[in-house]
């Protein structure tokens, strides 16, 4: 498509870099923004997005998204919960929060161990988890990680690291898809599986 304005062309190109936005939608959004009053656009769209990009942080405790150094979940629940739910991504935290069935803490790993993809133990938020459990009277760690080969590898490795600390390690009740795809599991099933979690056992070989 040819544009009479290079400014428009550049805005369309920028918007279509967003996931799920094609050239056509990008053009429609651009034309909509032009039709709005200039100061409204700046105040209602541009400012919040710019502020999010410049100000958002990762929680220093659980690596979830936060406005300050510590996220709102850690601030509100740290003194009243001694359970940590380990997840792969921030989206998993949101999916579990949506179920309203869990009032404990989280720990976002940032992925699963997969050396073939260049992700080794040191690339994940594992040391910070071990330190957290060591220092904060944590009673239970729930592994809400996908049941793939790489997920199982991660669960085993974490359990071995946590074993000397005497903390209880549990898994979500199986039979649903979770971890990475946690947000796609229906809320009811996910909520139930976090309530009826089962102990993780390492059989001696």
């Amino acid at each position, binding site marked *: 498509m040819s544009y009479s304005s290079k400014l428009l062309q550049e805005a369309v190109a920028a918007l279509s870099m967003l996931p799920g936005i094609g050239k056509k939608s990008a053009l429609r959004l651009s034309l909509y923004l032009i039709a709005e009053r200039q100061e409204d656009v700046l105040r209602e769209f541009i400012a919040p997005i710019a502020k999010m990009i410049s100000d958002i942080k990762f929680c220093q405790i659980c690596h979830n998204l936060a406005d300050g150094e510590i996220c709102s979940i850690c601030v509100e629940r740290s003194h009243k919960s001694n359970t940590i739910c380990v997840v792969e991504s921030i989206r998993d935290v949101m999916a579990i929060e949506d179920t309203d069935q869990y009032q404990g803490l989280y720990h976002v790993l940032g992925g699963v161990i997969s050396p073939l993809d260049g992700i*080794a133990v040191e690339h994940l938020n594992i040391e910070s988890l071990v330190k957290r459990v060591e220092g904060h009277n944590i009673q239970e760690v729930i592994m809400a990680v996908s049941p793939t080969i*790489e997920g199982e590898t991660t669960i085993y*490795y974490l359990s071995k690291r946590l074993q000397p600390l005497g903390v209880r390690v549990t898994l979500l009740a199986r039979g649903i898809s979770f971890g990475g795809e946690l947000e796609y599991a229906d809320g009811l099933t996910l909520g139930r599986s976090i309530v009826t979690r089962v102990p993780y056992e390492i059989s001696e070989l």
Partner: protein
Amino acid sequence: MILRELELDCFKNIHRLSLSLRPGINVIYGDNGAGKTNLLDAIYLLSLGKSHFHLADNALIRDEEEFYRVVGHYSSGDDKTYDVVVKHQRQGKKQIELNRKKVNRVKELLGRFPVVFVAPDDISLVFGGGRDRRNLINRTLCQCDSDYLVSLMKYNRLLRQKDAMLKKWPKPDRLEVETYNYQMIPLVETIHLKRSAYIDELGAVIRGIYADISDDDECVSTEYKSQFALRNIAEVFREQLDAEISIQRPLVGIQRDDILLYIEGKLFKKFGSQGQIKSLLYSMRMSEYHFLSKSLGEKPILLLDDYFEKLDGKRLSALLLLIQQAPFGQVILTDTELSRSQKIFERHGIPYAAYAIDKGELLTAKK
């Protein structure tokens, strides 16, 4: 299971080809490089979802084309019909369909259209590395035991992850490596047990076939060579742990298994004569045929590439005898010329169909 129709699009050197096959014997003849082996490989692909020659899917696409597509129409003894489609586009992912439904896991396909391929590279079964002999076991067991297939696929994934882990810098600690070992051990247990039973039986089967085709009464035997023989599997893994970390590659596992082949108690590859080796190769291939028919309850499709070069004298007579025994499945064989096949089959009163192929194209079929 009988392959009734085969359609190829842009597969290796074949541009477009469609072929109707018959139950029993089908002879495909033409010069070297005409595309005979590629045709058999396409049939193999329909059964196992990959090339017999371990070629990547892009390498199966005809030069300067963008995709390949192979279609097979099968019919079973009870007159049910099945369509299998395997297609692949450059940069895309290979797709397999069974009766117009997408096959997501290759295990849904394996064993449905059992096949045995006797190819020119066969001699590697005796002289090649352990990999060729492991492939023989895997091909057979994967087609008739889905538990084996699933364990092997999971094991191979773990092995690749472990290998990548061992090669990373900084070097992994013991726990990082043990994490993989822990998951591999139960799989090794399953695979080892099944391979062990298979190789035991293989020995007896090969001996039987060999005795039928050999002039002398030499005794052929097999032995399962494995790091885990009579050992605690976990202990074997533990013993090599530190060495694996320092050498930076896996040293333990079923990827190091092998089958040792003996004649009169001596290693075949050192002491077998040419005639004995030919008989052994025939016996090993036919053992695959034997296992698949026995455990699946139906005859696999037998693909014999350049059969005349490999089967002469007693071996050829033994094959003909097998073919004459009813009920027999389907055999698709290739040769450089028709006349000698014609002579053999006509002398034995065995019906057959013949197809001429040249430069990747089917010339007129004759019966």
